[in-house]
C-alpha cells in the first residue's frame, strides 16, 4: 500500500521554530469570558434577563405612564374593568372596559330581566345577544355585555388594568406594588449577602476555635424554619417595609454563610493564597484581594436565588394577613385584595399574579443559567 513516489525533499528533518507542540491551539479564555460565552448561548436565561429588565423598568416608570396616583381613591369610578386605547374594539382581548356574562332562564324574557338586574338596570349600556331563545325546549340563553365605563360616565377615560374597589387605578398600583416587592426583596438579599459573606468568610478564614463556635451557632439557627422566624418577627415589629425586610434576613443569611464558608475553606489552602501569605500580606488584604474574587460567582448565583425567595415570602405574608398595611401596595397585598373579589372582578388578581409569576420564573431561570455558566458541574 505504501510505495507511491514521494519527493526526496520531503524526507529531510523538519526544522521548527521553537517548540510547536506547546503552542496552544485555542485561545484561552478567562473565567469571566468563558462564563459569559456560555451564558450567551443560554436563550432561556437571556429571555429571563430581558423580562427582569423590562419589569424593573416598568416598576420604576410605569406609575408615571398616566396621571392617576397610586392611592387616589374615587368611589364613583370603582371596579372599572381594564380598557386600553386601540385595543378596546378587539373582542377577544380583555381590554374593552366591559363586563361579560351569560344568563340562563326558562324564558327569554326572564333571562333578559336577569341580565338587566345584574347590571344595575342600565339597559342603555347593556348589549345583549340571544344565544338560544328557549323555543326548542331548552333554557333561554342570553349573552350580555355591559359597558361599565359608559354606565359610570367615564367614557373618555382609560384604566389599563382597571380600577379596584376604592376606584384606584390598578395600573399605577400594580407597578408601584412591583416596585415595593422588588425593593424589599433586593434589600433583603443584599443584607443576607453582606452578613452571609462576612460570617462565612470569617468563620472559614480564621478556622479553629472561631470556626467551631460560629458553626455551632449556625447549626442551632438553621433548625428554625423561616416561616416561624418571619411570623414571630412580624408579630413583634408590626408589618411594614422595614420590618418585613428585617424578618426575612434574620435567618436568610445562613445559606450564604454556609456556601461561602465551604468555598473559602477550599480555596484557603490553595497555593496562590499561601504564596501571598508568605509574602507577608495581611489577613484582610488576602480576603479582599484573593478570596472574594474567587467566590463572586457563588455570591451572585446565591443572591439570584435569594431574591425570588424573598419576593415569595413578602407576598405570602401579605396573603395571610401579616404583610404590608394599606395604603402601601405590594404584589402580595394586591393579590390578596384581588383574591377577595376574584369571582366578580378577576382582573384585580390576574395582573399582579402574572407579574409576580413572571418575576419568579425569570429570576429562577436566570439564576439557573448563571449557575450553569459559572460552573457546569455545580449543583444546588
Amino acid at each position, binding site marked *: 500500500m505504501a510505495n507511491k513516489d514521494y519527493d526526496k525533499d520531503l524526507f529531510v528533518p523538519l526544522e521548527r521554530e521553537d517548540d510547536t507542540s506547546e503552542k496552544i491551539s485555542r485561545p484561552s479564555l478567562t473565567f469571566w469570558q468563558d462564563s459569559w460565552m456560555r451564558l450567551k448561548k443560554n436563550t432561556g436565561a437571556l429571555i429571563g434577563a430581558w423580562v427582569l429588565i423590562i419589569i424593573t423598568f416598568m416598576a420604576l416608570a410605569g406609575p408615571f405612564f398616566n396621571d392617576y396616583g397610586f392611592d387616589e381613591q374615587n368611589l364613583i369610578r370603582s371596579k372599572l374593568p381594564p380598557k386600553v386605547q386601540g385595543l378596546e374594539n378587539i373582542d377577544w382581548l380583555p381590554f374593552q372596559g366591559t363586563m361579560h356574562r351569560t344568563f340562563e332562564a326558562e324564558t327569554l324574557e326572564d333571562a333578559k330581566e336577569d341580565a338587566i338586574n345584574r347590571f344595575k338596570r342600565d339597559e342603555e349600556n347593556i348589549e345583549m345577544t340571544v344565544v338560544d331563545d328557549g323555543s326548542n325546549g331548552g333554557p333561554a340563553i342570553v349573552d350580555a355585555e355591559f359597558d361599565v365605563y359608559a354606565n359610570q360616565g367615564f367614557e373618555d377615560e382609560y384604566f389599563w388594568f382597571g380600577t379596584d374597589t376604592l376606584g384606584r387605578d390598578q395600573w399605577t398600583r400594580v407597578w408601584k406594588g412591583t416596585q415595593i416587592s422588588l425593593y424589599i426583596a433586593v434589600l433583603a438579599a443584599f443584607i443576607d449577602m453582606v452578613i452571609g459573606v462576612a460570617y462565612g468568610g470569617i468563620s472559614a478564614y480564621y478556622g479553629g476555635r472561631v470556626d467551631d463556635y460560629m458553626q455551632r451557632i449556625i*447549626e*442551632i*439557627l438553621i*433548625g*428554625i*424554619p*423561616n*416561616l*416561624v422566624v418571619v*411570623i*414571630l418577627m412580624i*408579630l*413583634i415589629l408590626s408589618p411594614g417595609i422595614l420590618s418585613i425586610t428585617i424578618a426575612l434576613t434574620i435567618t436568610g443569611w445562613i445559606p450564604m454563610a454556609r456556601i461561602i464558608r465551604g468555598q473559602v475553606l477550599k480555596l484557603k489552602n490553595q497555593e496562590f493564597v499561601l504564596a501571598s501569605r508568605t509574602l507577608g500580606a495581611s489577613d484582610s488584604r488576602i480576603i479582599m484581594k484573593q478570596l472574594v474574587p474567587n467566590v463572586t460567582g457563588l455570591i451572585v448565583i446565591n443572591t439570584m436565588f435569594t431574591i*425570588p425567595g424573598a419576593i*415569595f415570602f413578602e*407576598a*405570602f405574608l401579605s*396573603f*395571610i*394577613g*401579616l404583610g404590608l398595611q394599606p395604603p402601601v401596595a405590594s404584589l402580595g397585598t394586591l*393579590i390578596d385584595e*384581588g*383574591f377577595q373579589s*376574584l*369571582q366578580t372582578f*378577576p382582573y384585580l*388578581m*390576574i395582573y399582579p*399574579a402574572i407579574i*409576580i*409569576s413572571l418575576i*419568579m*420564573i425569570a*429570576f*429562577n*431561570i436566570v439564576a*439557573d443559567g448563571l449557575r450553569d455558566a459559572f460552573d457546569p458541574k455545580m*449543583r444546588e
Partner: protein
Amino acid sequence: MARYIFQRIVYMFITMLLIATFSFFLMKLLPGSPLMMEDKLTEEQAVIIKEKYGLNDPVPVQYVNYLANLAQGDLGISFQQDNRGVTKILIERAGPSIQLGAQALIFGLAFGLLLGIFAALYHNSPIDYGSTFLAVIGKSIPSFVFAGLLQYYIGVKLGWLPVAFWEGFEYTIMPTIALAMFPIAIAARFMRTEMLEVLGSDFITTARAKGVNRLGVLFKHGLRNALIPLVTIIGPMAIALLTGNLVIENIFAIPGIGDTFVQAVMTNDFPIIMGFTLITGFLFIFIILIVDLLYGVIDPRIRLAGGEK
C-alpha cells in the same frame, strides 16, 4: 455515628428551647397578651388564664411553668374560641390538613419523579426541556397564585370541580394539585439530575455490557440508586407543604390547621398563632433530624465514604 446522633439531638433541643423561649417572651410583649386583653375577657376567662399562666408568679417561675406545660403538650388557651385549649383545637383541625398534605405529597412525588425520569431518559430532547420548564414554573409560581387561578378557571368559569369546602374527594382535587406543584417541581428536578448522574456511572455500563435491556438498566440498576438521595429533598418539601397548607386551606375554605392559623392572624388570637408556630417549628426540626439520620444510615456508600453527615 452514635456521637453524631447524640450531637444532633442536643442541637435539636437547643433549637426548640430557643423557639419556645422566644415565643414566651413574645407573649409577654405582645399587645394582645392575656394581661392586656383582660378587659375583653369575661371574669371566668380571666380567672382561668391567670391561674393557667400563674400570672402572679415572678417571670422566671412563669417561664419554667410555661416550659413544663409545653413539655406536656399544653399550648395554652385560645382567646377567641370560648377558652378552649389550643392543643385541642389544633388536634381537631389536623385531619383535613394531614389528608391534604399526604395527598399532595404522594401525588407530587409520584408525578415529579416520573417527570424527572423521562427528562433524564430523553436527555436534551423536547421532553427534557418541557419537563424542565414545568419544573421551573412549579418552583416559581407561588402556590396561592396558582391556587387562585385554578379556583377561578377550573372552579368558577368551567365549573368542573367544586370551588371550595371539604365535603368529599372531589373537593380535595384542586387543593391537592395546587399544593403539589412545588413538590412536583423539586422531585422532577431532583430525579433528573440524579438519574442522569446514575445513568452515566460505570456500573450502568457494566450492566449494559452484560446485555441487560433498557428497562432493566433503568429500573433494576438506575432507579434504585437514583432514589437513595431522595431523603435530601424531604426537608424542602416539608416546608413547602407546611407553608402551602396555610394559604391553600384558606383559599379553598378547608377546615384545617392552616386555615385556623390564618383566621387567628385576622382575629389576633395570639395563643393559636403561637401554638401553631411552635408546632410547625418542632415538626420541622424533627423532620430535619430524621432526614439527617436517615441519610447517614440508608446508603452504605455514604457511610463508607465517610461523607459529611
